[in-house]
């Protein structure tokens, strides 16, 4: 063990901390982005041409905002949202400081994924729901969301993994986390064993996410 992983022993407790930090970032910014992205994605879909509340202007504005935020390199976004972060979290550094920019970085991405997932719901089902007198809200919850659980699960998976990638960059504001740990020790100090340790643990995280999503997808695929 210590032969193959010479540096691990000394850094074990830091590794554990990093792991926890990653989990915290994932959970917090993941769940908030989930909500935000879902709302934004739904808004994109229903305001689209032929959508439930077709509205060209709103659709284009939303689309532009999403594109704008997706266009800002994450490192720059990290600094740009600092004032907002401070306002919300009291500080712009540490874990707390990382969550806001992570959310800003993830919501636009996830909303596009949601848009894509919801677009796969057959139009006939929307029509059926409307014919049965469903309100737009009901169509959203009872048809759009319910019928696209499988593609949504895929979207969540892709987004979580991308978020994991962003957390590595959030190290810039001192959030810690696995990615940052790997960069600082494994990469910058060339401790290959640390890099491997981190990559393996991220792979495990990713595989857990993937397996969970596969289960959901299989349960919600009907054909």
């Amino acid at each position: 063990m210590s032969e193959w992983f010479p540096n691990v022993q000394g850094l074990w407790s830091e590794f554990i901390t990093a792991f926890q930090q990653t989990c915290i970032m994932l959970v917090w910014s993941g769940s908030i982005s989930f909500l935000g992205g879902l709302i934004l994605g739904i808004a994109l879909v229903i305001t689209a041409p032929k959508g439930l509340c077709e509205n060209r202007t709103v659709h284009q504005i939303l689309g532009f905002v999403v594109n704008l935020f997706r266009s800002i390199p994450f490192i720059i976004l990290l600094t740009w949202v600092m004032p907002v972060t401070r306002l919300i979290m009291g500080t712009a550094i540490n874990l707390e400081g990382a969550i806001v920019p992570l959310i800003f970085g993830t919501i636009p991405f996830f909303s596009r994924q949601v848009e894509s997932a919801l677009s796969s719901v057959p139009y006939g089902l929307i029509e059926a729901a409307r014919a049965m007198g469903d309100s737009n809200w009901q169509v959203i919850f009872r048809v759009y969301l319910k019928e696209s659980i499988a593609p949504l699960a895929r979207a969540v998976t892709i987004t979580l993994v991308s978020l994991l990638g962003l957390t590595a960059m959030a190290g810039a504001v001192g959030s810690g986390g696995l990615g940052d740990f790997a960069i600082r020790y494994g990469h910058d100090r060339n401790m290959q064993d640390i890099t491997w340790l981190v990559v393996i643990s991220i792979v495990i995280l990713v595989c857990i996410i993937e397996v969970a999503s596969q289960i959901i997808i299989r349960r919600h695929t009907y054909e």
Partner: protein
Amino acid sequence: GCSSKTDSSQNTADVKSDEGSEQSTIKLGVTGAIYEDIWQPAKDKLADDGINLKFVQFSDFSTPNNALNSGDIDLNAFQHEIYLNTEKESQGYEIEPIGYTFIIPLNIYSSKYKSLEELPENAVIAIPDDLTNGGRALKVLDEAGLIELDENADFSPTVKDIKSSDKNIQIKELKANTLPSALPDVDAAVITGNFALDYGLKTEEAIYKDQSLDQPEYWCLIAARSEDLKDPDKKAAYEEVVEAFQQPETEDVFNNDFGGYFIAEGWNE
């Protein structure tokens, strides 16, 4: 021969090295836009001598050495000796310094307090999270009497090497280029001079000024591949580069454009 001195030599950007023996391109790896400014006088001078100095910008500290060792670039100038040695040791690179460039002071800034004494108990001080500057920042803190480092620590100490600190100082490692923006979130920060400069922090505002400018281990240097240095032609060319940098015009740039944040050191060694 002579004809190449007309148009093409003026255009320094894309001249290829195979255009006669007098025209050669030297690829210099650097890490940040600032280097292009401070190297400009040297570049001009070398151009007159038929050497096209081409900058290759890296945004990460470990790639320039990797690229140099493998011959992707000819020289790099971004690190100090401690970092170079660590890298050589861990990666087995065969590269060595051929001349010094400058040192950038690491001063301590604060947006909340006017002096070190005002720093409260449990104060949070941010330092750069990279190996190059992080260790030096700790030494600056040690020097300032805020912490005490283990004497047996490496030349590049880490947070683990802090033995004690008066005020139970909390160290926070952030990416060097986010430190100025994060200053409001901490009690104080050790900020690399170039970033301090660009974010409008003046030397005078520092609550503590870096005193260790005379330690050669922290002087930034120009590095070359050991193998190249065995080739007299190359060695001569590289020495010309060092010489071209270590000229008064460069110092003018330091003083005029960078308000004393770059200090020429070791030019005579």
